[in-house]
């Protein structure tokens, strides 16, 4: 049987994590179909059909899908679920919201947030904020799985020519209404996919002081992250939070500034390739995961850091 991946998109573009989920799904079974539930999203359908790992695109086009509502998506997925051995999506706020609703109605015990496909029924997933790894085997006949996007490569997006099959919409819920979405537009790379991330914590002491972080981020073309403490304190908005209940990032370089390194924060960044910690408390737990630790006052160190970067002839982008 084939596997079914649910695409995340905004009717114009597919969201990048769908491409990581495609890689994971194709490791479960190569006969991978992608379901696109949207409104006037023909461009997205075409894009997905050109992803070489995708064997078929199921396209549901109806105005009720202009905004993503889990209840409506679930009804659409259930109409086609019987043909598939696995239903898969990314374990970000999109998939976390959607998949359990689908799984419950199929009477499946979902496997959340996998970081490795061991076999079509056995997966590796982090538990306890990544402080333990569990190898789990699903004994349900059909499986619902969400994928930690940063643990899988981005799929190639050109060269494929999958068939696009138009399928019917399902019923619309009357009990949930989309009101609005406040997206903060930024020219910076996205936190989840950036090559370099620089994050600030409580040590920044104020929202204004985050400018020290943004200046360095601009220089390095980095995304900006934050600890939960910094978000709770209102220094920066929620979509920047890295950690167990925020985003998981795996950049080539992660720079933690004024972050003590609570277990919950480490859960979101400790798989990064190179970790730098700048903190004036030499005993801070963040140093235990840092490749390079600098014990210093961030208010002195960050301007110096920028100055040193400015001296370099070239900076990798």
């Amino acid at each position, binding site marked *: 049987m084939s596997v079914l991946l649910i695409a995340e998109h905004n009717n114009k573009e597919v969201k990048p994590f769908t491409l990581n989920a495609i890689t994971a799904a194709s490791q479960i079974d190569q006969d991978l179909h992608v379901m696109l539930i949207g409104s006037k999203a023909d461009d997205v359908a075409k894009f997905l059909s050109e992803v070489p790992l995708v064997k078929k695109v199921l396209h549901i086009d109806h105005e009720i899908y202009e905004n993503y509502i889990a209840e409506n998506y679930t009804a659409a997925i259930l109409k086609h679920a019987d043909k598939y051995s696995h239903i898969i999506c990314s374990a970000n706020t999109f998939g976390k*919201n959607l998949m359990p609703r689908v799984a419950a109605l199929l009477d499946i015990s979902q496997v959340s947030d996998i970081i490795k496909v061991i076999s079509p029924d056995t997966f590796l997933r982090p*538990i306890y904020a990544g*402080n*333990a790894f569990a190898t789990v085997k699903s*004994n349900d006949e059909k499986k619902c799985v969400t994928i930690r996007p940063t643990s899988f490569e981005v799929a190639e997006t050109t060269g494929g020519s999958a068939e696009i099959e138009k399928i019917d919409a399902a019923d619309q819920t*009357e009990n949930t209404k989309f009101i609005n979405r406040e997206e903060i537009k930024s020219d910076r790379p996205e936190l989840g996919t950036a090559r370099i991330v620089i994050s600030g914590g409580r040590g920044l002491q104020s929202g204004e002081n985050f400018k020290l972080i943004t200046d360095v981020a601009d220089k390095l073309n980095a995304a900006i992250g934050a600890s939960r403490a910094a978000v709770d304190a209102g220094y920066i908005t929620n979509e920047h939070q890295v950690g167990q209940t925020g*985003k998981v990032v795996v950049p080539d370089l992660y720079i933690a500034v004024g972050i003590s390194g609570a277990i919950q924060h480490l859960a979101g960044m400790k798989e990064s390739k190179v970790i730098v910690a700048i903190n004036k408390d030499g005993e801070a737990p963040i140093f235990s995961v840092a490749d390079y630790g600098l014990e210093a006052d961030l208010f002195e160190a960050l301007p110096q850091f920028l100055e040193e970067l400015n001296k370099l002839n070239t900076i990798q982008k």
Partner: protein
Amino acid sequence: MKILVAVKRVIDYNVQIRVKEDGSGVVTDNVKMSTNPPDDNAIEEAVKIKESGKATEIIAVTVGEEKAQETVRKALAVGADRGIHVKVDGNIEPLAVSKILKKIVEKENPDLVFMGKQAIDDDCNQTGQMLAAHLNWPQATFASKIEVNDKSLQVTREVDEGLETIEVNTPAIVTCDLRLNEPRYASLPNIMKAKKKPIEQINASDLGVDTNPRIEHIKIEEPPKRKAGIKVASVEELVQKLKNEAKVI
């Protein structure tokens, strides 16, 4: 309006987890246990709604072993009116918990069910959505703001792109984010009072729900350790290392 709040007993968030050597799980003996943090936000929100006069009763429910009752007792100490403890031993998956909670909802007929968005032990993030599915109720997940209207809620949700606002008709399920509110501490007099509040005990087996796990835990192991890093003496040295040694800038 009646609000049911589901709470879970987990290893305290400050405890450094230790994996058992035989790969069967993590060490829980003599380890501090607490209420799952976002479940505290769920209770707090229910109490605030009751204090504003919009709710009449708060019921705290937990599913778990004998000691799970402590989390219900704590919820009673911060303002829940009565408790329900569904007793079940051993590992229980979100799917089974959601089926048990459905039975409790059918018995109690709440207008709202609140719970944390995810438990910090298994990190599944499933139970609320599954309960909503079983009941065919709307779901508002990852809530950071809740506005209670007559027959609906306006909920602001934390999503990857920022904030999203939806309106759901009641009855509804809300899963709570840590930023929804600041949970209060129980005062000593309220802890004493909570001891007199009733907790109904129900055996999961009496509810007719199959709680057998569908997922086998083959092995629990420690994640690969990072190799020890170094401390650099200056910003200059740091930049030089990043450029020439790590080659990341």
